[in-house]
């Protein structure tokens, strides 16, 4: 039962990844306006129907996958790099550096949920790169906390002390003796951060702070669907289901990995 569920989730994620990578190769026209087809309901040829400009919603959902996957992966990567560096630095340096970095982490944690990202995206202005920076600024904290705690647990183990006694440099100590031991919880955290970043990107785009028209993102599609809820309710389910399927699957897989590696309490999903 669980295996089937996880297999299904992997399949869904692969489908979205394929859409993100190969969507442009398909003969789809997400931006093609057809004013004779405005608000056309779903049909056999157009199985999600058309929007307020007669654009194909199915084509737009598929092209939106590129934005979601791209932003999700970019945010996770940036946050992972920054967070792990900060966490390692804090744990290895100890003392005052550790104290200051921990306070910095506390300060970032004090901003509730997506609020800091909203403020950052709002001040930086619209645009995909600004969305990535705004979300990375919120997401690195989880990695930093995790990397710091894990490194503290590992850094005085015998093999690390032995390597240090043998004169290994800092890079070797981190790369060969510490990182391999703390990578599992970081991967689990990454799956939750990925899911969170996809939701947050859609959220920012929904608020008009992310991807701008005419480019399609699931978030701004939901925003448009809301405006025409009374006229064309068929615009709503497509982007909603796309977003849900991607996020549910990423969360289920994160849970599965956590169970398999028997990790406790790597951060609960915060968003």
């Amino acid at each position: 039962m669980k295996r089937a569920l996880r297999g299904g989730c992997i399949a869904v994620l692969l489908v979205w990844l394929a859409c993100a990578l190969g969507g442009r190769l398909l003969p789809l026209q997400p931006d093609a306006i057809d004013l004779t087809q405005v608000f056309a309901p779903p049909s056999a040829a157009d199985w999600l129907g058309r929007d307020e400009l007669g654009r194909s919603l199915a084509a737009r959902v598929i092209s939106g996958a590129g934005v979601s996957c791209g932003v999700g992966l970019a945010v996770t990567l940036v946050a992972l790099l920054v967070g792990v560096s900060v966490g390692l630095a804090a744990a290895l340096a100890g003392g005052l550096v550790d104290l200051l970095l921990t306070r910095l982490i506390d300060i970032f944690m004090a901003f509730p949920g997506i609020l800091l990202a909203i403020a950052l995206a709002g001040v930086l202005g619209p645009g995909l790169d600004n969305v990535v920076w705004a979300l990375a600024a919120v997401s690195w904290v989880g990695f930093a906390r995790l990397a710091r705690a894990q490194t503290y647990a590992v850094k005085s183990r015998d093999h690390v002390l032995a390597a240090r006694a043998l004169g290994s440099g800092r890079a070797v100590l981190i790369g060969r003796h510490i990182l391999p031991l703390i990578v599992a919880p970081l991967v689990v955290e990454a799956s939750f951060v990925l899911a969170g970043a996809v939701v947050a990107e859609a959220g920012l785009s929904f608020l008009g702070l992310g991807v701008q028209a005419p480019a399609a993102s699931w978030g701004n599609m939901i925003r448009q669907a809301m405006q025409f809820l009374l006229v064309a309710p068929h615009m709503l389910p497509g982007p909603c289901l796309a977003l849900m399927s991607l996020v549910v699957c990423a969360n289920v897989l994160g849970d599965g990995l956590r169970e398999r590696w028997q990790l406790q309490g790597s951060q609960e999903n915060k968003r």
Partner: protein
Amino acid sequence: MLNALLLRIGLALGVALGVATLVFLLLHLAPGDPVEAMLGESASAADRAALRTAMGLDAPLPTQWLGYVRGLLHGDLGLALGSQHPVSALILARLPQTALLAVSALVLALALALPLGLRAALRPGGGWDRVTSALAVLGMSLPSFVLGPLLMMAFAVWLGWLPVSGSDEAATLVLPALTLGLALAAPLARMVRVAVGETLREPFIVAAHARGLSGQRVLWRHALRNAALPVLTLVGMQLGALLGGAVVTEMVFGWAGIGQLVLEAIQRRDYPLVQGCVLTISLSYVAINLLTDVLYQVADPRVRAA
């Protein structure tokens, strides 16, 4: 115990100062000159100079920061750009709406999560357990801007039971509170399940059973009182997600709270107002976390002794 409390309060004050500093720096993150960004390119040089002086932007950064913090200590968040009303007054006018929404959502979430999580913990692997886990995953993956429009479509558009949006009548509260409450109930139910489940395996529960106490008494007097503490902490932590989610939910339902205010301010590039709103929401979160910490210390004799 007093020392521990003072330490907590000191730490929270430090975090609050850090939050204020970050919010202060937010203004300087705007690409280019903040004055230009706020006034637009068409503004005259005299207007720009006037705004720069009025906001104290011609002073060196540390001086500006000192002025900002000093203002905060007096409850002065500056003037909103367009209307020239004090930011604090604008926020205070909206705060009750957001508080109403957040408290209703919290009550709803507790009413759903406590019984669900409890039933799931009493019979691990049973039907309720599976329903709770499925709902928890679903709830955590359904952001308010997805759940909100879907609920709106079902209850307001199709069934016509409730108003679509607004914040005037009492009925307009139902959908936003439901949207926010369900999102909060999901992780809570899961946490209740874990906390009660772990407590039930403790030796003192076995001992209580061995002394011949009834199952109900063991559950209510021994298990739940101990499981309440981690749940309390999580409620405090999740309130942050609640406050952040409230911003988006208010936008979905046109609920005239502080979240909608911050988005309006962003659209008008009214940075002092943006700063004020973000600071207010974040500092309430810091205060709530401090409060849960203190409650924890008061409620748990083990922490008190340590």
